[in-house]
């Protein structure tokens, strides 16, 4: 039924569309843009912004295109004077809730509000900003400026689907507000999905541009930058390139141009994570220790466990996330090698993620008393830093990341997509248990942006029961299944964000399944083209294991592993609006 094609007319044009689709979806599939604001392809249809109203020939009123299903022969009008006048007034009413701060907005050139205001000649100051005195809330690395919120509620839905239920809808009528929860049993997991689902930039991550600019000017410090696997497949978007453009070399060149002394690749650390995690998995299985083992690369997932499910802490792998792993290696191994006092090294980490800003602040993450990473910038923030410095990635000549922490395998790159950590670890665990590499390295059963994937992997005599979830609502499905059958799985990878890091809360806007697919595809393409695709064959990594760690298990544990602790509800700061 769903795939049945029906014929409709949109603005006099005959269009074939899939039965069951909304007018908005059918129009989009035919490349006809109907203005819409509160609609997001990831979310339920709420139909509350009333911008996407259209006419249907033969019907008196107007209908919201997002919530109206197409019917055979339906004739739709998406643009005329009546619709334009209605959209204009509704836009003006929306703008009256939204304090403009366009220069400092996550949407920048992609802002639909501004686009529609121009398109419909709306007066943005037709009404006074009724929320201009509304305070900003700050919780962890997230800032929610309510003077920009248009009450569309997208954040409330995504927060609930992310299992945090932290953003709450209160009161009614014009007194309706969205607020962080003061319930001690609820806390933010810092995934940042509210940011990427807010149509008007009311929520953003705490930015640190100023600090970076000042630090880069400090000649006494050695400035090191590291970038996460997924950045190479998404930062191009910030420079106006197509979704899924791979720009690793230009990214490195851009970072050097910014003034960083060294550019390292977190994919290299991902190879360490893979080797350690495969080792721990083999150990847990062979020694009949606590199973299933959960991955811990995703700090939002870890925060969820530490706050909501501390009973699962023993199931988290003790291996550090690639971000903190590389920071720790830079401030120990690399500092020693280069004979630099680690206190004089500043590590800036480019992450697709807002929770990574929180991960570096955890006391248990410190390495010899130092934070492994000094500053985290999201992909969006780096994009802005490039723009501010007039660095255009498109025009840069590709450069390579620096040795020795810039050399990585294909396994280290696919960490950026859901299933990537699992696939990399399976490749290495297979080798570890059988002494040879898998004949076909591509574990397609754990790939793809499907929310919840299961796989049984035959490794010698062992059948590994694996599960992969992306998006916390899918993680919840796994946790529910484990409550029924604790032995359902041996190894579970969880990424809090839809699609994994390529769909992270720090990634460029907009985002959708289509875009996430293209970003993931780019990473798998890199893996495919890499000569070395298994972590345990990374020559630099093996050399560091031999030369620096020299089988010293205590040292390995000290630098490459971490601990977890039950977390209490964190503070919510209220910042008054400046006049």
């Amino acid at each position, binding site marked *: 039924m769903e795939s049945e094609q029906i014929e409709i007319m949109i603005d006099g044009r005959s269009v074939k569309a899939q039965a069951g689709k909304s007018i908005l979806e059918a129009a989009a599939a035919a490349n006809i843009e109907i203005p819409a604001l509160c609609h997001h392809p990831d979310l339920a249809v709420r139909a509350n912004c*009333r911008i996407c109203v259209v006419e249907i020939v033969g019907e008196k009123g107007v209908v919201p295109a997002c919530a109206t299903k197409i019917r055979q022969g339906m004739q739709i009008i998406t643009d005329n004077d009546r619709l334009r*006048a209605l959209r204009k*007034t509704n836009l003006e009413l929306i703008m009256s809730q939204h304090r403009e701060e366009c220069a400092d907005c996550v949407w920048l050139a992609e802002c639909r509000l501004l686009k529609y205001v121009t398109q419909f000649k709306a007066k943005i100051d037709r009404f006074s900003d009724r929320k201009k005195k509304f305070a900003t809330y700050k919780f962890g690395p997230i800032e929610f400026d309510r003077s920009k919120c248009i009450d569309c509620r997208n954040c409330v839905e995504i927060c609930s689907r992310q299992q945090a239920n932290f953003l709450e809808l209160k009161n009614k009528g*014009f007194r309706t507000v969205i607020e962080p929860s003061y319930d001690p049993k609820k806390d933010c997991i810092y995934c940042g999905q509210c940011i990427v689902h807010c149509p008007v930039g009311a929520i953003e991550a705490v930015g640190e541009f100023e600090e970076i600019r000042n630090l880069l000017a400090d000649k006494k410090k050695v400035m090191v930058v590291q970038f996460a696997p997924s950045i190479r497949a998404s930062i191009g978007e910030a420079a106006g390139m197509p979704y899924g453009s791979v720009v690793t070399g230009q990214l490195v060149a851009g970072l050097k141009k910014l003034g960083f002394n060294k550019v390292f690749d977190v994919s290299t650390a991902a190879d360490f994570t893979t080797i350690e995690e495969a080792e721990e998995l083999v150990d847990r299985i062979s020694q009949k220790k606590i199973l299933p083992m959960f991955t811990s690369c995703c700090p939002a997932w870890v925060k969820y466990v530490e706050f909501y499910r501390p009973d699962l802490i023993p199931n988290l792998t003790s291996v550090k996330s690639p971000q903190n792993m590389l920071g720790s290696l830079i401030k120990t191994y690399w500092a020693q090698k280069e004979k630099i006092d680690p206190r004089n090294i500043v590590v800036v980490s480019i992450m697709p993620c807002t929770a990574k800003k929180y991960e570096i602040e955890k006391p248990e993450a410190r390495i010899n008393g130092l934070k492994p990473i000094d500053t985290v910038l999201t992909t969006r923030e780096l994009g802005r830093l490039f723009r501010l410095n007039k660095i255009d990635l498109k025009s840069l000549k590709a450069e390579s990341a620096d040795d020795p922490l810039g050399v990585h395998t294909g396994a280290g790159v696919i960490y950026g997509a859901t299933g990537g950590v699992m696939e990399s670890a399976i490749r290495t665990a297979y080798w570890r248990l059988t002494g040879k590499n898998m004949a076909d390295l591509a574990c397609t059963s754990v790939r793809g942006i499907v929310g919840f994937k299961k796989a049984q992997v035959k490794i010698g005599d062992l059948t590994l029961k694996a599960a992969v979830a992306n998006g916390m609502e899918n993680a919840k499905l796994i946790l529910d299944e484990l409550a029924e059958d604790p032995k359902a799985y041996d190894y579970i990878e969880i990424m809090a964000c839809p699609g994994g890091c390529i769909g992270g809360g720090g990634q460029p806007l907009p985002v959708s399944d289509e875009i996430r697919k293209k970003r993931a595809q780019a990473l798998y393409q890199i893996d495919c083209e890499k000569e070395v695709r298994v972590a345990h064959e990374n020559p630099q990594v093996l050399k560091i294991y031999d030369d620096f760690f020299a089988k010293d298990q205590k040292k390995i544990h000290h630098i490459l592993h971490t601990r977890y602790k039950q977390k209490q509800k964190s503070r919510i700061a209220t910042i008054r609006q400046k006049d």
Partner: protein
Amino acid sequence: MIIEKIKAANLRGCGGAGFPTALKWEMVRDAPGEKKYVICNVSEGEPAVTKDGYLLAKHPEIVIDGVKLALSAIKGSLGIIYLRKDYYKKHKTRLKSLAAGSPIELFEETCGYLGGEETTLLEVIEGNRAEPRFKPPYPPQSGLRGCPTLINNLETFFWVAKIASGEYIGNRFYTICGDVKNPGVFELNKDYPIVKILRETGNLPAFEFFVQAGGGASGQILLESELNQPLCGAGSIAVFDKKKTNLCGLMKKWSRFFINENCGKCVPCREGVYRLDEMLKDGAFDAESAKAIIAVLKETSFCPFGRGVANSFESLINKLWNQNK
């Protein structure tokens, strides 16, 4: 069969929308589903309308009979009497004893005006925020907890019982209030012109006047020259002395009511009502500006609430504002 009788009597819903009652009953009866609901809506949130409260006090047994008729016409159905808070407190004991032995429960509603809108009513009974649902699906297809659901106003059930006992003669109840000598609830023919209703009840003023018909907040303004038509919408007629009535004051009363009662879900209602209220509060009412807001309320609001706001404001501005100035 009761449904055939209702059809022959040509009864329409008395809540305000005037949907043919027999058709609604058939839709629920014929909808697939083991479990169904019959809901008697006694939210009566519209100002100036008190006829449901009147019937509840005077003839609760007839109302319950009407609900029971629906339960027997619709297989597998459970009944709910959905009462606004004060009605619940006042009448629960009597209603419970009248309903004893049948699958009828009482529900105490606490959310005000919007709680009477049928899909909001469903959300409220399900324990959710008091906000409307998108239609379709309509309640007869998928209503309470996804089951086919019949929702009728209390007065509708009253007339169904009267149809069953052969006593229905095409009347309805009118609440008459405002600048009149003889306010109250009256039973008169549903097709009488408004002027006749006022005359027969001893309420036709001798002075220049206008009325708000079909609800004390969402009803439309009718001039003396327009009273030769039957009443549409909710069963109320409020009479205003044209010389003595301050139009801004009247609109302010509406805007205050709507600003406190709207749910906040959609932009035109949440923000539009806020701006109408702001203009009236500041004494800076600008009819042209108001018209743009009224247009989005009328055409783009999510549920009938916004159209109700537009109904009263638009008719007042069109009919009285300009001549007033």
